[in-house]
């Protein structure tokens, strides 16, 4: 069935989002840089990385972060995932009439702190205030420019010489937000993983780790990243399910609501395709930041453009692109 209206499914980071982007935006803005569909565009002959992201989240303040931290991490992480050092950001906010100045100060303060972590500065901005009901409290857009330190990172360059790694346990942001948003009234230690990734990427680059691709697993989760990679690089990614790191809290929420942690959003968790000989070196560095870091899979040609999950008891299945709005199961 053809959609005549935008539904929430179009914003889930999975199949419907790709369709929307490909059919409407790529068709209109079509150019070679855009079509690469990387986390950030590489411009000026490979010297600069350039990315933009808009942020809206309910609740604005959540366990592990707030919309301000998210707005800086999000754009800086997109730059870092292209091997770039975040340098300059713009910050544009749309605020609903009646919004508390105290909250705004808190949000801006978080942004300031997170900029320091990245070593970036905000060099231009814009503020709009709109009548009540026109936006939900506050929307923030940040756009960033970074200096490329490690060129040639790309989702389309992954080969059988790479191993697939995860930087930490998955699904924390999505689980924390869902638990607080739906008023499920769970008593839990769920905390968003919202964090800046540039410091880790810098360590990997300094250690001369041979990186093929990096991607932070935001909307659509790790499942979406792996599927995008399998398609862009024309490969099969085979994952050992038992090696996917997951906290008890996230697993618990997924059990109760019928979610798959692999399609839950993250805001400070990334997937790495690292050349085999450097995988253990990369893992060592990742483990400094989070002991859950793990090698989760390999690249083959068994089922081109597909992601395959292997269970501990010897069965296999496909992991498809997350699709539809995240909905709790009925019974």
């Amino acid at each position, binding site marked *: *069935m053809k959609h005549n209206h935008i539904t929430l499914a179009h914003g889930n980071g999975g199949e419907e989002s790709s369709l929307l982007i490909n059919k409407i935006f790529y068709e209109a803005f079509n150019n070679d840089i855009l079509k690469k569909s990387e986390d950030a565009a590489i411009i000026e002959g490979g010297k600069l990385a350039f990315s933009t992201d808009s942020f809206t989240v309910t609740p604005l303040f959540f366990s592990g972060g707030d919309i301000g931290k998210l707005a800086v991490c999000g754009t800086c992480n997109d730059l870092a995932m292209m091997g770039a050092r975040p340098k300059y950001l713009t910050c544009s906010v749309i605020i609903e009439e009646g919004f508390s100045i105290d909250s705004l100060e808190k949000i801006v303060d978080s942004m300031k702190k997170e900029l320091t972590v990245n070593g970036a500065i905000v060099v231009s901005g814009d503020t709009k205030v709109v009548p009540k009901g026109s936006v939900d409290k506050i929307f923030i857009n940040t756009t960033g420019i970074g200096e490329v330190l490690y060129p040639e990172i790309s989702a389309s360059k992954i080969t059988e010489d790479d191993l697939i790694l995860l930087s930490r346990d998955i699904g924390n942001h999505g689980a924390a937000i869902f638990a607080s948003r739906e008023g499920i009234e769970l008593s839990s230690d769920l905390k968003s993983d919202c964090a800046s990734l540039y410091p880790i990427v810098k360590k990997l680059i300094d250690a001369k780790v041979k990186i093929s691709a990096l991607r932070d697993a935001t909307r659509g989760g790790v499942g979406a990243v792996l599927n995008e990679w399998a398609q862009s690089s024309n490969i099969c990614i085979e994952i050992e399910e038992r090696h996917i790191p997951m906290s008890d809290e996230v697993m618990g929420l997924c059990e109760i609501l019928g979610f798959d942690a692999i399609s839950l959003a993250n805001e400070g968790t990334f997937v790495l395709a690292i050349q085999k000989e450097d995988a253990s070196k990369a893992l060592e560095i990742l483990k400094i930041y989070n002991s859950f870091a793990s090698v989760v899979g390999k690249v083959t040609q068994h089922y081109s453009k597909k992601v395959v999950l292997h269970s501990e008891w010897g069965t296999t299945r496909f992991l498809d692109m997350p699709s539809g709005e995240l909905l709790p199961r009925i019974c």
Partner: protein
Amino acid sequence: MNKIDKTVKRLQLKELYSGFRDAEVIKSYAVLIHKLSKNLQKPLNIMEVCGGHTHTIMKYGLKQLLPSNINFIHGPGCPVCIMPKERINHALILSKLPDVILVTLGDMIKVPGSDGSLQDARAQGADVRFVYSPMDCIKISHDNPEKKVIFFAIGFETTTPMSAALINKVVKEKIGNIIFHINHVTIPEAMALLLEDNSHNINAFIGPSHVSVISGSKIYEPFPKIYKKPVVVSGFEPVDVMKSIVMLIEQVLDNRCEVEVEYSRSVSYDGNVQAQKLNNSYFEKREHFRWRGIGDITSSALKLKPEFSFIDAEKIYEAILPTQEINDHKLCICGDILKGKASPQNCNIFGTLCKPSHPVGSCMVSSEGACAAYYKYGDIL
């Protein structure tokens, strides 16, 4: 205070399921099934009635562990899948009324009727919300006293008491702005209908444990007695399903035919009598209900008793809710799949015209439908 002493070691949530996903246990059941099944005279075709089991079988790849003479037939037990389009249209019509908040459970909001889904209605401005517990309607009604909250109730025996509990509160506390559109269905009548059809291929059943937590294992008694089909009431973890297969094979080999409970950790013969009482105070059987893909089944659904017509949306809005039946696309073979006569791969439009993002037929609409499970997890081996 009711707090548990911190020195007491509490059971963690994951301890409730981790053993039931233990790789070694699963593998040892697979070995046992292979060994036992060699003694079977003919193939054992097991219908797992509930979509939750279909999901478990596909997600954990259990089919890959079984010998070729043990087959699954995927049954009609998915409350979203069996909802006929004309009733989804009711939800759409109600959601578009002024000053109405339409509330339902999870998956229901993405199932298309003949004029889009509730998700589409929401995108066009209708106030459609999904809740995890029907009781959340109380807060919604309290926060929106000027609006009418319509709870579009769906589900099998499992979710019926949750609706009944909400109705009980609404009636007892005289909450004026919550009404109900009831679509609760019951499973044994559908199972019996499948067996009445002479062309069926079913030798045994795996029954859903959560239904029997409420209704008891007694509801399956007619199947061994009248239809000579053994039933095992099973939990939803992979170890539960593997063990249930062993129990069914053993029944066949021992020449037994009975109702057995694998999920003995929560299922009793009589079930949750309190919940049944609550259901019986508000609901009575419908004469018949049309199941999407299957057709009319006598006494297979519930409706509000006449004395509660003041909260019955079907009565209140009778004039604007059409009852004309709307069938699925003629290429769709969901009817045969739900009856166990065909497999998703036998369908010409599976994975092409019909996908989870654009479902044509009932089995693709919910993550628990057979087609959706096949599409999502594939079937590699």
